[in-house]
């Protein structure tokens, strides 16, 4: 369990890190908390020649409000997100999601930027990013750009980041008005990774669902936004039967993953069930009362 040899540098500015990344190309990897990368390196599934450690660059971690947006630095740990009073008030879906990642030790080291850039198909925070329509700030040699969460995840462990770009921060909306949120997952028992995880936020207007975002992780090769489910419920009066019909659409045009932990069929079943449950829970926290559906 010892990684292949590599060099390790600790740039103190973002520009320095981008220069190192540009000159070393595919041979280099960025190191944030290391809780996705180091396990791969120990298994020799990844053998970068150079680790560019971002931990000494000031300003990459932290949570702040900017008007109607919350900004979370890429090096902010899952624990910092889980325990942020500001986020609990302004965008509770993030702490709700962060608190069920891995275990305490993992949450102490793992970072939001590291997790998103790694793009594990079962990463929890990816679901919340997609549900919230997060914007991701990316810096590279050519300057800066913003990507929507939906544009960011391309495939299994593949993102829209070019080899010389660094994800620096994440922007999510402040949830104002009568909003409800939920992140529900069925964790794989040993690893804690989501077999399926569903993140939901919705805004209530009386008994109506004024707006809704649904992000799904674990089901397919990449986390995705369940646009069909959202469309089915937007501007509708939420009833259990309607939520059930909408939730059934979560698996449309998705090829579910199957492995030793859960077959593709079982994952698809879980996706429909957890979508239903997460929407019901989000509706409940938004103050919409639903009559209980049979068998749920």
């Amino acid at each position, binding site marked *: 369990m010892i990684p292949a040899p590599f060099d390790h540098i600790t740039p103190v500015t973002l520009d320095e890190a981008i220069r190192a990344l540009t000159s070393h190309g595919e041979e280099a990897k960025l190191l944030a908390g290391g809780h996705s990368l180091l396990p791969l390196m120990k298994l020799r599934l990844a053998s970068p020649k150079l680790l560019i450690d971002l931990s000494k660059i000031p300003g990459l971690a932290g949570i702040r409000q900017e008007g109607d947006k919350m900004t979370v630095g890429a090096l902010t740990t899952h624990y910092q997100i889980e325990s942020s009073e500001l986020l609990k008030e302004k965008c509770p879906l993030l702490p709700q999601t962060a608190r069920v990642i891995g275990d*305490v030790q993992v949450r102490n080291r793992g970072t939001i930027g590291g997790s998103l850039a790694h793009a594990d198909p079962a990463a929890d925070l990816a679901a919340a990013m997609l549900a919230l329509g997060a914007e991701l700030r990316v810096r590279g040699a050519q300057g800066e750009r913003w990507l929507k969460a939906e544009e960011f995840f391309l495939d299994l462990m593949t993102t829209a980041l070019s080899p010389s770009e660094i994800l620096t921060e994440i922007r999510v909306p402040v949830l104002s008005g009568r909003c409800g949120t939920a992140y529900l997952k069925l964790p794989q028992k040993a690893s804690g990774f989501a077999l399926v995880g569903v993140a939901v936020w919705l805004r209530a207007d009386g008994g109506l669902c004024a707006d809704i975002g649904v992000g799904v992780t674990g089901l397919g090769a990449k986390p995705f936004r369940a646009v069909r489910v959202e469309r089915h419920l937007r501007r509708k009066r939420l009833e259990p039967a309607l939520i059930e019909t909408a939730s059934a659409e979560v698996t449309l045009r998705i090829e579910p993953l199957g492995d030793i932990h859960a077959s593709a069929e079982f994952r698809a079943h879980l996706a429909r069930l957890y979508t239903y449950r997460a929407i019901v829970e989000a509706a409940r926290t938004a103050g919409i009362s639903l009559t209980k559906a049979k068998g749920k």
Partner: protein
Amino acid sequence: MGPKKRVSIRINGVNYLHEVEPRLLLIHYLRDVVGLTGSHIGCETSVCGACTVMLDGAAVKSCTVLAVQADGAEVLTIEGLAQGEDLHPLQEGFWECHGLQCGYCTPGMILSAYQLLLRRPDPTEEEIRRAVDGNLCRCTGYQHIVDAVQYAARKMKK
């Protein structure tokens, strides 16, 4: 072999300066370079928690941290908990409440509990169970570990 890097790490109140390969894991550094073998190697895949130590006030699995990442940091291991002959309340709790049988998971278990009591001096049973979620014990069935942490929390409040 990658070029060696100089690391300065303060462990249990003592400063250490070494030249290490960047790929050296913190757990191997603690055990093989510094000679502190209290932290154990269990799964080496960041699952079992036997290698848990405190790194700048946060419990971490030292099999998933590079020694170079701990450069300039402060580390607390199981060896640093007792004050001379006086056991830390957590160590005393594990003794009094039979919080261990084989003892392999104990150093990591105690440091995860230490992290909990820093953040929640008066934890509920559920919070204790959640706090040691990342530490596997195959002997006790966890109940005596929960008792031990409650013992320590009571003692530290006094």
